[in-house]
């Protein structure tokens, strides 16, 4: 009797324990799913390494910007334009000629610079409390329109360099090389088939079709 009871208790403990443990784990992942997707972190652990993380600054400023003589230091300032002379009477495009037109947000959706870069004083993107600082830009800026934007999503290059220009090999090598590869494929395919088809059409233009030939 005792033996049967002990055996059955043992078996019950053995098989019921498994789903209990699994249920707890399941509840945990369910609860943290959205946060993980957004941050790449589960509690304090980085769960998807190699992805854009809001806790790390991935866009180390490398290019020298023309910021009224302050160089790239200005991107770390609370007021990036503090040193620009006659600032009040200028438009963004007056100085940022290229950046004003190298993004589809502006050219196609008519989004103004200030809708992302904020109101005066415009903080440099690397200033710690700037809404465009990579540690929070996905939540503070991108998510205003792209609901659910993650740190990785915010790595989309809004100010896209022209993919065929030589400078892009430095600033965005993947875009440069992949685009050039596609252009090369297109070029060789047309270099072959355009003259081929043109010659063919010319040849047929001067060839009468043979009729009634068996």
């Amino acid at each position: 009797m005792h033996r049967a009871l002990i055996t059955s208790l043992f078996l019950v403990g053995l098989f019921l324990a498994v789903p209990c443990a699994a249920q707890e784990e399941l509840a945990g992942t369910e609860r943290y799913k959205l946060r993980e997707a957004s941050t790449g972190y589960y509690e304090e652990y980085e769960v998807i390494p190699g992805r854009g993380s809001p806790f790390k600054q991935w866009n180390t400023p490398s290019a020298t910007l023309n910021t009224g003589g302050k160089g790239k230091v200005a991107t770390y300032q609370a007021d990036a334009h503090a040193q620009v002379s006659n600032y009040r009477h200028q438009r963004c495009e007056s100085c940022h000629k290229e950046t004003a037109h190298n993004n589809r947000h502006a050219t196609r959706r008519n989004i103004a610079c200030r809708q992302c870069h904020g109101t005066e004083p415009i903080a440099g993107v690397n200033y710690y409390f700037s809404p465009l600082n990579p540690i929070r830009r996905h939540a503070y800026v991108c998510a205003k329109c792209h609901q659910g934007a993650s740190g990785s999503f915010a790595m989309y290059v809004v100010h896209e360099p022209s993919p065929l220009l030589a400078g892009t090999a430095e600033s965005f090598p993947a875009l440069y090389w992949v685009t050039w590869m596609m252009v090369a494929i297109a070029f060789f395919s047309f270099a072959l088939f355009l003259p081929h088809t043109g010659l063919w059409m010319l040849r047929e233009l001067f060839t009468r079709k043979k009729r009634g030939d068996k």
Partner: protein
Amino acid sequence: MRLKRFTPVQKAFHALLMLSFLVQAVTGTARMYIETNWGRTLAHPFGGYEGCLTVHKYVGLFMLFLFVCHLAYVLFIVMSKKIHSDDGLWLQKKDLKEFFSHLRWMFGGEAPRFERWGYWEKFDYWAVFWGMIILGTTGLMLYAPLETSRYFKGWSLNVALWVHRIEACLAMLHIFVIHFAIAHLRRHNFPMDRAMFCGDTDLESASEERPAWLARLRTNNELREKTIDDVSAIRMVVTYAVGLGAVALGISLVVGGLMNAGLVNW
């Protein structure tokens, strides 16, 4: 007398692919040129910039569905019966030879004796196959950018967009210039090759252009079952209207695209 080159299933695949490709070409070009008046005019019937994207996405999914159906169809055909190597679409050494002898013919030499498929037709098939994979993959990435950024870094969307664009331009130029020139505009096919639509291919011009195929059909006694009478005048008019409509649309897209290319912030 007409000679059957394609089965009704193959013709249906081609018609659906043609229709969806044209919709994708118009909506895609409209979005690419939305900064110009021409682009906005193109986008207007589809509901502007946003409407174009919606149409483009759904038709894109349909094309991928069509591609999957085609793969299943090809697998079924290959598994169910033995296919003569000259009825298949694999590129062979013979195709390279025919390409060069065709080039020699263009400068006055003897015309090569083509089989059922010319090398340019095989190239067209594999070009669409490759294009489907490239455009399908990048298109799916751009279909749901937020979801994509969960698996790839956000900047891969920049790359995907440019790959999608260039491959689409390549596909459109190839179809609207080269495919149309060969199938419609060259003298022996003018105004259009009906092999893919109703009426099939003309027996006489096939025996001139593809004598090796005709010889094979004769020796295997398959010629009788492959020949049919010409279709009615009404179906022929519809065929010409559809085919030449596609040519007009395609060429106007190419001309408009080239004329407006300078007005876009690339």
